[in-house]
């Protein structure tokens, strides 16, 4: 059975105030992943 997006979830997804904080959180999270660096795998 496929999951569905509930009315409440949709409200959270589209509420500009909640999403403003989400935007800040997401920007930081993405930055952390990018800044988390990268490297080789062979001599790890």
């Amino acid at each position, binding site marked *: 059975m496929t999951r569905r997006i509930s009315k409440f979830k949709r409200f959270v997804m589209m509420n500009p105030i909640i999403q403003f904080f989400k935007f800040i959180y997401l920007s930081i999270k993405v930055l952390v992943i*990018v800044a988390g660096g990268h490297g080789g795998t062979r001599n790890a």
Partner: protein
Amino acid sequence: MTKIVVLGAGIAGHVAASHLRRKLSREHEVVVVSPNGNYQWIPSNIWVGIGRMKPRDILFPLAPLYAKKHIDFKQAKAVSFHPEGDSQEIKPYILAEYVAGNENGTQEKVTYDYLINATGPKLNFEATEGLSPGKNKAHSVCTYTHAQEAWIALEGLIKQMKEGKKTRILIGTGHAKSTCQGAAFEYILNVEQELRRHKVRDMAEITWISNEYHLGDFGMDGMLLSYGSDIMKSKEMVEMIFEDRGIRWILGAGVHKVEDGVAHYETLDGEYKQESYDFAMLIPSFSGHGFKAYDKNGGDITDKLFKGFMIVDADYSPKPYEEWTVQDWPETYQNPSYANIFAPGIAFAPPHGISKPRKSKNGTDITPAPPRTGMPSGITAKLVADNIIGMIKNPNHDLHHKGSMGNMGAACIASAGFGMTKGSGISITTYPIVPDFKKYPDTHGRKLGKTFGTIGLAGHWLKLALHHAFLYKAKMKPFWWLIPE
């Protein structure tokens, strides 16, 4: 004095050239050879394809920027590679043919000390019979011109829907081995939202067609991701979104022929089927550019440099899916035969796929090819530039800048609809890009938490913010280098 030639001015080529220019003194020459006079921020093509942006919003001309930054620009295409020079030219060179200006059509031997091949993919429409952007009602969004043409066609269809015509829209992959499912996924959701905005959603049946085995495979074998307090497969997430948007789907489909309004495809069961449409956007397969390479005596050495795309420090020995490891993936993007040649971004030949390979009952490979998105393209280009700088400064440099896709994260913010209040984005991060089943055996090769997904308006804002930030960076405006790849 060292001369570095960069082929291509896409994400990888432009990142490499700009970092080289910033970090190297002017005694060193940086030359960019690319046939397109414009830089384009390809991810925003999606919005050109739904008429919410114009091509001019996502591109800028390269020549004035490069002139200002002391980067030599040749609007030309590489034709052949001569890594040992020839009987008249002792330095290695590439043969380039100008495609614009007074020199249009003339060829030049562009010599180099270091060569960065960042020519990305050839959009291989010919691999699918009848698939050509704008023909047979099938379109592409892979370039801004294609995307603009797609919008003109879609706009026409919206008009017809407003007049009462019921329509069928087909979006996905146009070949059994296409990659870039992410772009098609963004486009289908944006088209769906635009139809709602134009109040004609009920007039269209929208179908996803893809060579993926599961929804949400994205050529990355799918993901297990954190989704709020849940843990979910990318398959479940995409299924949830498609159900929500009323999009039907066809999976394991190898499209092999396109006729006027009809896509013919083979299924993994070996059946041959067809799907009719009034508008389609099908991503072609990507291939290498078919470059040839010659040694100093004119002997053909193409197989030392190319395996479709360019050969780099990957492990290309054929092996079954069960034996694939992250160690197969390249770390420095250096060609093993010629230490002064590198290939970041999409230009390098991957060792194999990421998704589990599958064949139809007739023996046709129907598997997504591995994607190399913008972020890894930028990161690999920057590390190549850093290694070249290291080699210039110290000939014994050990190429210590490394970045395997098996030890690198990627953020993919997929647009799901445009609009400051009605827009939406699906933000997915993945770490590592190539799953490491030894390190993360219980979570399908990826680290949970660093691999997460979320849906909402914030995703649209983030995608829009990235559009502006990356164009700012590409234009090399003050402190551009502080914006990460």
